């Protein structure tokens, strides 16, 4: 006879199995956290002394050199007020590191893993960053920081941010009213703490506006088409790949500049290198990898984009025609949009901005582009800008003021 030590009837067994599974899952979950922590510790090369900025209240953290234009206007405005601050970056090529000022200390704090360890130990009253998902992903809140602020770096809606992008910040420096609306809705749904939602605007517009003025007027040349896709799965590059450029270049009445999103090089390196490889000897095709797109945008006569925030820049700053890929925003899973049940701002306003094309137009894209360059549409863009972007051209000052108010509040 088989000897059984245990018997439990199915109902209780399922309860028991439930315990066992729960224990196992919990352990696995905990162990996983532990594993990642150790992994981070190893790749983070241990703890780093964080007493570098002991007396500085305001610290900015930048993930990469492309965000320097976001911080620069704020830092400059603070500098004007003789207020000291610090700038940390995970990018050793960050131009911020070369910025000389007695009011600004800068430091390169290593790769993302090292950064997360470093930031966990940070001491400050205010930390501002462009990186979303504080306390969700690797960057955790430090106990010694009173206030964390997310500084928005694109005019886009919150839909296309990854999950929980803002939930654990104390404040968000918003670019426009649609962001405030979205974040409030998310707070309501998730019952997370209410954040300070500030009407700030886009600080890098300050820089860009200055740049545009400084830049020499381009000489008259062949029309230029600027292709500025986003990096995500639904982008022009990801959906059409090489084919798009093949078709686009069929017409030689214009030249093409491709300005890929910096993240494309991280997320889809194969795809982008394939394109670069193919056209490395094509004089009509240039890839722009400058941190600021001002020069390319200035040169361009038409922009082709998808859901990238960049076309707003093009529109707000230069008021030139835009051709957009039709994007049904179904593939929102895993992004903040899946928790929001209204039409996102970009979708609402897209039609006001420029022409739309879809997959079926892929073959004739060259014709569409040519037509658009030849007969641009007239649009009420000034109005739209006023509605969508706070403090156009003076967002840096505003942000600095808001930071100081926050610190004042803390000091109270």
């Amino acid at each position: 006879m088989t000897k059984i030590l245990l018997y439990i009837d199915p109902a209780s067994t399922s309860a028991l199995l439930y315990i066992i599974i729960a224990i196992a899952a919990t352990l696995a979950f905990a162990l996983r956290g532990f594993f990642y922590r150790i992994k981070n510790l190893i790749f983070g090369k241990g703890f780093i002394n964080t007493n570098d900025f002991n007396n500085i209240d305001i610290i900015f953290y930048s993930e990469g050199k492309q965000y320097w234009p976001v911080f620069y206007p704020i830092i400059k405005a603070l500098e004007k007020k003789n207020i000291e601050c610090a700038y940390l970056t995970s990018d050793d090529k960050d131009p911020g590191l070369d910025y000389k000022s007695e009011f600004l200390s800068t430091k390169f704090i290593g790769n993302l893993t090292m950064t997360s360890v470093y930031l966990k130990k940070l001491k400050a009253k205010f930390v501002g960053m462009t990186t979303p998902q504080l306390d969700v992903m690797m960057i955790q809140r430090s106990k010694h920081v009173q206030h964390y602020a997310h500084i928005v770096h694109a005019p886009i809606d919150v839909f296309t941010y990854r999950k929980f992008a803002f939930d654990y910040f104390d404040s968000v420096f918003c670019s426009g009213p649609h962001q405030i609306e979205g974040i409030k809705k998310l707070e309501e749904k998730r019952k997370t703490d209410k954040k300070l939602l500030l009407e700030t605007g886009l600080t890098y517009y300050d820089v860009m506006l200055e740049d545009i003025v400084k830049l020499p007027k381009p000489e008259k040349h062949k029309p230029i088409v600027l292709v500025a896709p986003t990096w995500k799965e639904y982008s022009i590059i990801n959906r059409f790949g090489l084919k798009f450029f093949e078709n686009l270049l069929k017409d030689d009445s214009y030249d093409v500049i491709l300005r890929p999103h910096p993240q494309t090089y991280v997320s889809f390196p194969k795809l982008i290198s394939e394109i670069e490889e193919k056209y490395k000897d094509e004089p009509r095709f240039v890839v722009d990898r400058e941190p600021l797109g001002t020069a390319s945008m200035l040169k361009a006569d038409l922009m082709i984009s998808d859901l990238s925030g960049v076309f707003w820049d093009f529109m707000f700053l230069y008021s030139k025609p835009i051709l957009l890929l039709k994007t049904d925003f179904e593939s929102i899973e895993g992004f903040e949009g899946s928790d929001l049940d209204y039409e996102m701002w970009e979708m609402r306003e897209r039609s006001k901005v420029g022409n739309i094309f879809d997959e079926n137009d892929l073959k004739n894209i060259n014709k569409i582009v040519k037509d658009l360059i030849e007969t641009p549409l007239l649009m009420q863009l000034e109005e739209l800008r006023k509605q969508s972007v706070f403090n156009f051209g003076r967002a840096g000052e505003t942000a600095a003021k808001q930071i100081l108010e926050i610190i004042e509040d803390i000091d109270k």
Partner: protein
Amino acid sequence: MNFFEQIISPFIFIIKQIFLFSYELTGNYGVAIILLSFVVSLILLPIFILIEKSKKKDDVVKKKMKPLIDEIKRVYKGQERYYYLKTINRQHNYNSFKALIPILSLLIQIPFFIAAYQFLENFEGLKETSFLFIKDLSLPDGLFGDIHFLPILMTLVNLLTAYLYTRNGNTSERKQMLIVAGAFLILLFNLPSGLVLYWTMNNVFSFFRLFITNKEVFKANLFGSSNFNFDFKASYKKLKIIFIVILAPLLFSQLYWAFSHNFDDIIFRLLIAVLISIGLTLFIWLIINFYKHYKTTILEIKVKPSLFFSLLFLVVYFHLSSQFYYTGENATLSIISLLMLIPIQFIGCIYTIRAKSKSFAYKYTIIIYLVIVVYQLVSLISYINEDISISIFKINLLIESGSFSDILVPGIIFSLISSIYYLRHNGTQTNITARKNWLIFSLSILYIFGVIFFWHPLIVYSSFPANFEFPAYKFFSNNLIPFIISIFSSILLYKILSKKYRINMLQVFLWIVIIVLLYSSIIPFDVGTLQVNFFSKENNLAAETYKYLFEAILLIGIYIIVIRVLKRKYFKQITFVLIILNLFIISQSLYLSVKTGVFFSKGNDNIKAKEIQFSKNNENIVFFIIDGAQGWYMRDIFIENIKLNNLYDGFVWYPNTISTSNYTYASVPGMMCGSDFSIENMNKDEDKTITQKITNATAKFYKKIKDNGYYFTGNNLAYSNIDLEQIDNFLPKWENSWSKAMGLINRNEMWYSRLYENAIFSSSPLFLKPRIYNHNKWFEIGKNEEKGITSTDLLSKYSFITILPEISSSKSNNSNFIYIHSMFAHAPWDLITEDNKLISDVSPYENQKQFIEIFAKWITWMKENEVYDNTKIILVSDHGPSWWHYNKKIEDHNMPLVWSKDRKVSFVEFLRLNPLLMVKDFNSKGKVKEDWRIMSNIDTYSITFDENDPTKNNPSSRTVYTYYTKWHTDLKTRKKYQNYFAFQIKDNVYDINNWKKFTTPNDAMSYMSKNSSISIYDGTKVDLDFIENQRSSIILRIKKNYTWFDNIKEKAEKRGISLDSMLVLSANYVIETSELGYIKERAILIHSIKNNKEWLNNTINDAESRGISLDTMIMKNVNYILYAREE
């Protein structure tokens, strides 16, 4: 008591109290079990309510989180996914650790279940107690033969609970509950029905618990929507047609019958026909309505491919395992297959109906289905009713009694056809195309065929190279061609398959790789050693059903893992593992072959050591124990075969011989070493265990032989732990080379292929093994033909005597001592024929005669090799035959037995003590003589070593002793033999009047137990009164319990004794099996010590020498005896 028992014991106590109280209350064990189950459920109820509450709370949160979690799981992987899941938990205040705290209280119920199991399993009261339809609560109910009802009932209850409990979603929990229900059906299937009753009731109560904890599950309608359409009028027309269609043939058949026979009950018959027609019509109408109503629901049933194909696999698996079963078709396995067939055919039907095509093939399929189902139904009916004969218009159709195959095989065909429609509906599986498939495939076939043709054979070869007469490379080169053919045909098949099916083939091959790995090196399955064409323990192939169940699940599990691993594209990892596997098996087998050095040169086969050596010049002694031979038979054997008289030249037969004991382990020490190792003397030593004593005897015996300058050759030093390494020449039970010598096996070529056949055999799952090998046959279904002697056990028992001349040599220069202990004459008794076939179940006489005849051949060899005269041969048995193993009449062969008035021993006991003793001294000549001087088999020591040899010293009168001991299985821990009785016998063992009872103190206990009807007095009286009271209260209780009482009445009738005495017997049984038994035995023992003068004196002496009171000493002795018996 170990830690586990310590924890469990209080729970056992609680369970015991509840159970005994319930029994007091009801007087019925069945009801008591149900009550016990109820009370335990009641005790645990509050805990369950708590758990359910906390679970519901959790469920709400989980339900909320589920879509979010699913979304994250769909989109993200790895670290990112982990961070998001963590955040979701955080936002819902859900901490998986926190969730554990209330559930921990759940753990409290586990000990109750273990306790109930342990208590009920060991509870004697359930034995032979019937309850409702259960005949014996201590056995499985066996209501339908091999199929037990209670476990099925339990499963049904569980399924209902699972259905209700999980109907509001929660499919993961449903899966769990189904798995658990299935597991317990298997686990509990063969357990005592009392236990299963307990569990079944537990499940019934847990079903009722739902009313308290989960009321909501009953609120919704049980079958979905409730508006079942019973509109009779609407279908009236159709019904009329159905009714007429059924009625017509029924009426016709009755009339037809009446015309051809008689019109006696014609009205009644017609009425029955009409009634049956109405009943059938209603039944059909119900089915049609039911189908109409649930048509959409039923047709929407969706079955996952994993379930569909698992079921299909299970049907085929159990059918094949039944067909291939070692001892022929196995009904239980067929029934399991049948049970699986029902749902798969049903599902197949649904998917076929859903396919709804107008194609010719589809219509054809439907017709095939109908034919198959009708065939199955007829087979099923004919299986139940045996032969069916139908006569239509004088044409007689006979349908022979169906077998399970008749139902199963068409069903399998049905399911295979329907799987086409199933696949059409579900689409084919995702194509996985990867460049690395080829590498994986090559590595897989390299492993599979490598193991089969080279590596496994090489390991087998290296593990006993002495068996082979060829170096390993020979079978290597022999197997090279089949290996290459297998590899190439697999590659060819893979190549010609379309890409779609390639992945399936890859799955199958990876599956086989894992199976081969598991079965050839991880899962142990003992069929004994390979003896060229058979296995020594092949009976193990007849495995229990549960093993098949586990294996089926295992095989499916492996396949699912393979599919998943491939789907996730772990190609690198698979490749890596396969390379490791290949390297490992290659290096392992090569290492072994290098270590044993067998690859190019044959292993070292020390044939010489397996010889029995005789010397022509020096003395030889053959000490031959023929276990269990009857002494008295020799007269008839020598009369029946007169030639033997001459062959046994110089032998003296001592018919007047008693055995010193009735068991080998009690006699052999004395036979080896004389009276120093008589039972009485061995029992004096209280420090050593019996095994140690036997080992000492063997050692002493061996030392004596060596001291006398003999070279020792021997076998089977039974029950001894002596170090066999230090013995000059120890013969094995059986040798492969002996099989060769007997012409049982010879061809090397057979070995070449046998080695890979064996590799396939050992790499195969259990259900295929008997298909590969069965009763000496490889790769054919084994029909149970005439069976030659195959197993090592039988060979060593019978053929060992035959082989003796073949393995004897006369070239030795030493004096030789040959000790052989043969089991030839031991029960069960068989004969072996010339061509080595076995005739089973002959009489002990026939068997013994054959032994004497075969042994004569060895004598002839000795004579031919001139070693007979200088050899002393002692042919002796350690005890007589165990006649109780013989189910025909006991043969007495005119035994000159004289019974005394008080029959001191039974006939069987006497025969057991009547051993064989024949001695041929050096240079003794002439026909066999009878010598009627009294002997004991313990005299063999004196005879062997010529010390006070009673055959030579000619004592006129002598007393010998015999001890009838109990059967002990604990020789390794036991220190004393326990005797039923002991006698001293004077002059003639066949005259029982000469037997005088001989009692030693430690035998008194057994003496007492044989004569327990002794009146009791003084201090022990209280105990006995108590027992009397108990007995009458038990009898009263029996009388109150009708089932029990009826049971006893029945037993009394069966045994032909009065009801009253049966009641007393039953009460005694209850007393003896409960603690009261101890009290009674203690009382009797105390009494017997006080009444036996000698024993009492001994006890007084003991008490004085220890300085304790007599009463204490008596109690000490009593406890010791009781303790010893407990052992």
